[in-house]
């Protein structure tokens, strides 16, 4: 144990040294212009993202996010977990739409095992996936207002998100971290009354979208704060690997729900992929708003014809995944979330690369923040929509 202790001591020492180095770095940066540290404790970063911005007056000369305040090392942790245990970890990546994190990992494991969940499980998975998208993005819509000083929309968002969270809790038992997806299916079937309840909630959510559109998106100040701000052209968005609504707002017609064949139920229903040609903050917010609407439509249609049958395929009690590599990504609330799973035929993955949406979405920040004003930092960050757990993993 002595070697372990000394290792820990060294870690602590190195951490202290790093803080000192950080302090030195700041002193160096202060020699010209003004360096503003936004975060890690700042109300606009909803989490612990730190943005170091060098300002000339109120204009940003140079800005760079500094991540790592929430790095939990999930890629390393998956290497010592079994496959069913991993879902409990990846739940915490994007904590607002947790169920959606589980799905691609489970799909990757199923792909390696060459099994497929029964149709009913696929349907329920898709419903829960879309519900977590609605829960996630509706909070984004409320938060958007708060970042721009409109304090009322966020409470409406919290109010209506609660209905969706209740649904998720009713079905899975967990409000935020369902841990409901299993290799080969789902833990349980839907509870009684879920379908009727969901229909009611979807109506409420559509009302919520209308409310948001009237209260926020139609507001001239909101528009003047977001239109033409933080424009990301198509090719830059592709280079940086932006995904989800950020990419579609730049005019790229790409939705992984439509553009790949996964054992999920999206291709069974009729829905539309929204894009916006502008690529500015407004476009990103607008596309997300439309996506919430579209998600409620998807859920409604899926509820109409859930197939009957079991929710769990025949899988062995102890899950061993055959040797191989698999990549599965899905269109998560934040964007493309994928897992590159390398299996050595063991109980747990040999290596898991977690490709999270926010990491790529935020990596464009130094590019897009150049030359904007301090207030626009906030709107651009808000419109890019990141979740700290999704950046740092």
């Amino acid at each position: 144990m002595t070697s372990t202790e000394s290792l820990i001591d060294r870690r602590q020492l190195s951490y202290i040294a790093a803080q000192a180095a950080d302090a030195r770095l700041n002193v160096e940066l202060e020699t010209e212009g003004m360096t503003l540290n936004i975060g890690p404790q700042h109300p606009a970063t909803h989490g612990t993202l730190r943005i170091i911005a060098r300002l000339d007056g109120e204009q940003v000369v140079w800005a760079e996010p500094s991540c790592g305040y929430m790095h939990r090392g999930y890629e390393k942790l998956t290497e010592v977990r079994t496959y069913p245990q991993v879902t409990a970890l990846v739940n915490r990546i994007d904590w607002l739409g947790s169920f959606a994190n589980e799905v691609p990992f489970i799909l990757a494991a199923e792909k390696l095992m060459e099994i497929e969940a029964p149709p009913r499980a696929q349907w329920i998975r898709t419903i829960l996936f879309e519900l977590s998208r609605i829960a996630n993005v509706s909070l984004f819509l409320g938060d958007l207002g708060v970042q721009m000083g409109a304090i009322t929309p966020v409470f409406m968002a919290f109010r209506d998100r609660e209905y969706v969270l209740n649904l998720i809790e009713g079905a899975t038992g967990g409000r935020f971290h369902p841990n409901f997806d299993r290799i080969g299916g789902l833990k349980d079937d839907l509870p009684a009354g879920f379908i009727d309840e969901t229909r009611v909630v979807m109506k409420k959510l559509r009302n919520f979208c209308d409310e948001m559109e009237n209260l926020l998106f139609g507001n001239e100040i909101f528009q003047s704060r977001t239109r033409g701000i933080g424009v990301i052209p198509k090719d830059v968005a592709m280079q940086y690997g932006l995904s989800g609504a950020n990419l579609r707002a730049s005019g790229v017609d790409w939705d992984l729900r439509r553009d790949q064949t996964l054992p999920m139920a999206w291709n069974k229903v009729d829905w539309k992929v929204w894009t916006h040609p502008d690529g500015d903050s407004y476009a990103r917010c607008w596309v997300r708003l439309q996506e919430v609407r579209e998600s409620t439509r998807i859920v409604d249609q899926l509820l109409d014809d859930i197939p009957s049958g079991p929710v769990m395929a025949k899988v062995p009690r102890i899950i061993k995944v055959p040797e191989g590599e698999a990549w599965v990504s899905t269109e998560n609330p934040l964007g493309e979330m994928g897992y590159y799973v390398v299996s050595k035929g063991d109980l747990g993955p040999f290596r898991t690369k977690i490709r999270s949406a926010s990491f790529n979405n935020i990596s464009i920040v130094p590019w897009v923040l150049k030359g904007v004003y301090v207030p626009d930092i906030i709107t651009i960050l808000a419109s890019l929509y990141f979740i700290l757990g999704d950046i740092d993993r």
Partner: protein
Amino acid sequence: MNAALLAADLPYWAQALLRVLGGVVAVLLPAGTIVYVFLFKMMSFMQSRLGPMEAGPYGSMQLFAEVGKWLQKEDITPERADRFIFKIAPLVVLVSTFLLVAVVPFGPDAWFTNFEAGVFYMLAVSSVSVLGILIAGWASANKYSLLGGLRAAGQLIAYELPMVLAVIGVIIQAGTMNLQDIVLAQNAGSMFGWDGLGNPYILTQFVGFIIFMIAVQAELTQTPFDMPIAESELVSGYMTEYSGFRFLTFFIAEFATAGVFSLIASVLFLGGWGIPFAWFGWDTMDSVDNWMNVVGPLIMVTKMMLLSFIIMWVRFSYPRFREDQLQRFAWKVLVPVSLVNIMITAILKVAF
């Protein structure tokens, strides 16, 4: 109040004491009412929640709990702050509120002072709070505070001008800068010979009223003009480093000023404490009955609540401008419009 005091033949010190007490009431009462009614309750209902409910009936004692909380908090001064200036800044802001309330007439005799150039004085002292905000931002030794203070300075100066220009229309129409006489002119006046409503200037100076209210919104740094505070950008701007009683002072000053500006707006545009004089057959200030000294303040509070309601309503539902958009709005929209307003008012004044 003045006449009543003179009649009682009080010594000077007693009069002064009464005026100070009256000023404290006139500042704290609106502040407390606005905070409770609008900030606690109206905002909560707009946001589909209940607001404070535990302290007293409908949470009405919450205010005292809040004050108690703030008083208990430690009064922190940042290490590198300019201590003296840092500590004095909230008081400067609050003093400007007291100076403002000094000229507001509450009744035919209920006033603290009755300047001939009351409007001029009012516009002058309302800018004192900028000094307080600026030195608060500077003295905090905090980058966010500094940005907030600078923004406040730029914004308040930009909006001072439209406010002055909006008031000039009223002055031209009333022909006086004495606030008491402006009240008189509105209530004793008539519209095209009909004096059932007097002549409240909100009807003739509607543009001026709107500009005045917008400028007030900016002066108060309320959303959509709250960049100096901007919780989501500058954390709290110039208030970031303040805690305890000093923060409370800022807080009181903010809402008291909202109340006082509403009072001033009601004096300038809504007829102030008066009711149309024709109803009771009054025609000059001297003929007004004495009971108006009691009813007048109530009327003023009602109008203040109405106008603060509008201020707060806007505050709770709008997002905020960006600094440059705000400046553009002030210089390119409000100033030209108010200039045109003055021109038209002057022409009509000469014509009729």
